């Protein structure tokens, strides 16, 4: 077998490594990873865990005048153990939405922390204005946007039951990975309501500066919403 570590091999492996985000060529101390790589891993994991247990900053919501509704999530532990609790609003929040929101809007925008509050803090300021511009360009009228604390994707159906929008878009924090703890998804559904399935929804995922750029995502969501309303369908039935 060839000798290792010659200059040429080094350059070629660096080039190969540039094709993957995997944590390669870290070296070792005995059989253990070097301290700086161990700490980098720990930092990325810490950021992911903190994103799960963190809350969306009040300033983020204030900036866009979003008021807060609650699901039946109770607390983080209950939210993680019983996903169903994040799919239903509390009775109090349901009453509040009935009071404060436009009923049967063309497009209902909902924002939720999901599994990463940081995803909302980091991306909403780029996604939401771009989305609103796109709604205007596509001639779509928006209802009353709000924030849902402790939401799961299925909460779209509970909101659909209450507010009866033609189309609903949920901007929600994704389960954090080590690459980024602040990735957002946009789930969309035509006439959401009880009994809708995953196949009835569309999603643009991986929205963060290193993935789907937030501003582009906002424009893309607007186009999809227009098609959903034109074709009166979403999910696998939509011809995109």
């Amino acid at each position, binding site marked *: *077998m*060839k*000798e*290792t*570590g*010659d200059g040429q*091999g*080094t350059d*070629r*492996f660096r080039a*190969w*490594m540039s*094709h*993957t*985000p*995997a*944590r*390669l*060529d*870290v*070296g*070792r101390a*005995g*059989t*253990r*990873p070097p301290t700086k*790589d161990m700490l980098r*891993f*720990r930092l*990325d*994991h810490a950021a*992911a*865990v903190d994103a*799960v247990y963190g809350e969306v900053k009040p300033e983020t919501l204030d900036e866009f005048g979003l008021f807060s509704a609650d699901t039946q999530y109770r607390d983080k532990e209950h939210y*993680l*153990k*019983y*996903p169903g609790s994040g799919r239903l609003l509390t009775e109090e929040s349901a009453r509040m939405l009935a009071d404060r929101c436009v009923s049967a809007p063309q497009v209902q925008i909902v924002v939720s922390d999901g*599994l990463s509050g940081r995803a909302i803090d980091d991306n909403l300021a780029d996604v939401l204005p771009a989305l609103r511009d796109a709604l205007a360009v596509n001639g779509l009228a928006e209802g009353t946007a709000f924030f849902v604390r402790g939401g799961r994707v299925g909460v779209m159906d509970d909101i659909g039951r209450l507010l009866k929008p033609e189309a609903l878009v949920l901007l929600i924090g994704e*389960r*954090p*990975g*080590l*690459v980024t*703890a602040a990735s957002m998804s946009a789930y969309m559904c035509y006439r959401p309501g009880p009994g809708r399935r995953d196949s009835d929804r569309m999603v643009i995922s991986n929205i963060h500066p290193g993935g789907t750029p937030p501003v582009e995502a906002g424009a893309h969501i607007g186009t999809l919403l227009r098609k959903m309303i034109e074709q009166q369908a979403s999910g696998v039935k939509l011809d995109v």
Partner: protein
Amino acid sequence: MKLRTTLRGKEYRFRDLTDLLAKANEERSGDALAGIAAADMTERVAAKSLLADCLLSEIRLHSPLPPENDEVSRAIEEGIDEGTYASIRGWSVAELREYVLRTETDGSELLRIGRGMTSEMIAALCKLMSNLDLIQAAAKIEVITTCRTSIGYRGTLSSRAQPNHPTDHATGMKASLFEALAYGVGDAVIGINPVGDAAETIKSLLHATREVIAHWNIPTQNCVLGHVTTQMRAVQGGAPADLLFQSLAGTEEGNRGFGIDLALLREADALIRSEGTADGPNRWYFETGQGSELSANAHHGIDQVTLEARCYGLARRFDPFIVNTVVGFIGPEYLYDSKQVIRAGLEDHFMGKMHGLPMGVDVCYTNHMKADQNDMEALGVLLATAGVNFVIGVPMADDCMLNYQSLSYHDIATIRETLGKRPAPAFETWLEEAGILAGGRLTAAAGDARRFIY
């Protein structure tokens, strides 16, 4: 079968064997989510006490999912060695536990009685065993399997190199694979989870891994973990596959959720036996994991430990080369924290071995579970002590495609060195010839992937 008992002046009643099996489980979030868990610790012990007195014949008679209603139950029933069963049918689960733990009862005897047991009996036994019971009993059992190479020998710890890539990029995949090899990882299988489930993707990854194996003459096997039907199309199209892969569930309905049934598995089995590129008798790689049936709403009110055992009852019908439980992948609603994941890892490994399976574990967690890398390092050591056939290695424990953490290449080398475990024999010889391993330890040249660039 007794379903009622009084402990410390309080009476506990259970509906049937299914209820007893569920409530006898150690605590886990999935059973609470399903609404079938014990209400408190004393009820848990009450269920264990009654289960201890159950006879194996009663467990067979009161199957939670009768064979006439479910093809997995039929596969389990058909797998029973009736002669062996007849010799143990009168034992209580308590007697079974003590027999399993006796010094005189060796691994081949455990494999013998395992062939006479249904998956529900093995699950019941597991529920009466402490973590150390599970480790000691499993450590007695040696399961050796052969595909292109043989693994599973006592004193070895094998590993799957899992060089996944977020876009199935062949060069990026190879960079991860070369680093695995440089740490002595990859003797069980070079196995890639593809992002895209197209036959062409699977074909190109099978060719890429085969090319590396051939170039460096590596004693291992390749596998690309797409859906079995896609792998079949790739193999029919001439792709070089040593193994077929499929995820299994413990109920017919759960398997339908995975897009498979027994007939499809039999068809795939015939294909890999005729068209596969390996010579050995073991041609399957199966994955399982507690909670998958509940997540597909296909659990029939049965607890996730019993359902997991049923996956193994199905798997053993196909004489697989490797089986592993992806223990911490499913999320906190099924296994909430490190205590639950560690317990489940030891349970699954023991139950798989009692079924005679070449059992590995993906020692892993997601970022919304209450667990971290320290917990995985601990579970890795416990499982290696229990004689686990293989574990999974990804660069620095971070799978950049599936977005979860498993064990690192470093961790596998460390566990081997700390516990005196060796890679599979042929792979060890290959590593020694490559100058990566000497006397069971990494050499100064190890850890550098550059040597494998060609």
